[in-house]
């Protein structure tokens, strides 16, 4: 599935719940759904406040399922990240004045199994994250 929405902060909750709902076909627990929601939420918030710096832009969010894994991409065509290595470091934030915690990427990495960041200054950023949903074994 592919979703395109304006980069408004009120769309953040719609995006996270839509992706979570799509992922629910893998039959996750509520806890796994919450992990996915948190990761999407962090990525979408980053696109809105860092990528577009609260100016209007489009968010491109896609999700697909392969075997037991959901793959989610969150893309913006905003300002991009200068130093991806540094951005991934816990507590690093380029906007301390906004009381950002600098923990967004760290949270995403903790809640998802794999995280890739592609970014180019002036062109935008794409985050790809994957999570394997472990099927409930004790059933039947």
């Amino acid at each position, binding site marked *: 599935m592919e979703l395109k929405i304006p980069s408004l902060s009120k769309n953040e*909750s719609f995006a*996270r*719940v839509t992706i*979570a*709902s799509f992922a*629910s*076909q893998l*039959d*996750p*627990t*509520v*806890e796994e*759904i919450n992990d996915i*929601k*948190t990761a999407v*939420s*962090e990525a979408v918030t980053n696109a809105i406040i860092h990528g577009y710096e609260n100016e209007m832009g489009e968010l491109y969010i896609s999700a697909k399922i392969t075997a037991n894994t959901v793959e989610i991409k969150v893309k913006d065509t905003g300002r991009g990240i200068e130093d991806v290595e540094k951005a991934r470091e816990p507590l690093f934030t380029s906007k301390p004045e906004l009381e950002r*915690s600098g*923990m*967004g990427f760290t*949270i995403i990495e903790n809640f998802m199994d794999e995280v890739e960041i592609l970014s180019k200054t002036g062109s935008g950023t794409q985050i790809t994250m994957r999570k394997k949903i472990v099927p*409930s074994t*004790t059933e039947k």
Partner: protein
Amino acid sequence: IGEIRRYLRDNNPIRVSRSLRDIAYKALQVRDKLTNENDREPTVSEIALELDIKREEVVFALDAIQEPVSLFEPIYH
């Protein structure tokens, strides 16, 4: 009384926001119940089955009672 109730119902129909919250609280009750019964966390589909709604509905309803996803503080301690 019946008349008043009918009046209130007809003139104050249930909003989706309210009904989503009701579904969400029921979903949480079912989640607790199934966790106790099976000794593990139920899946979203198991909760949906018990409530006789689609699993997507469960996901959307639960989001309606979720505090804004909080950055950092509640997660790391």
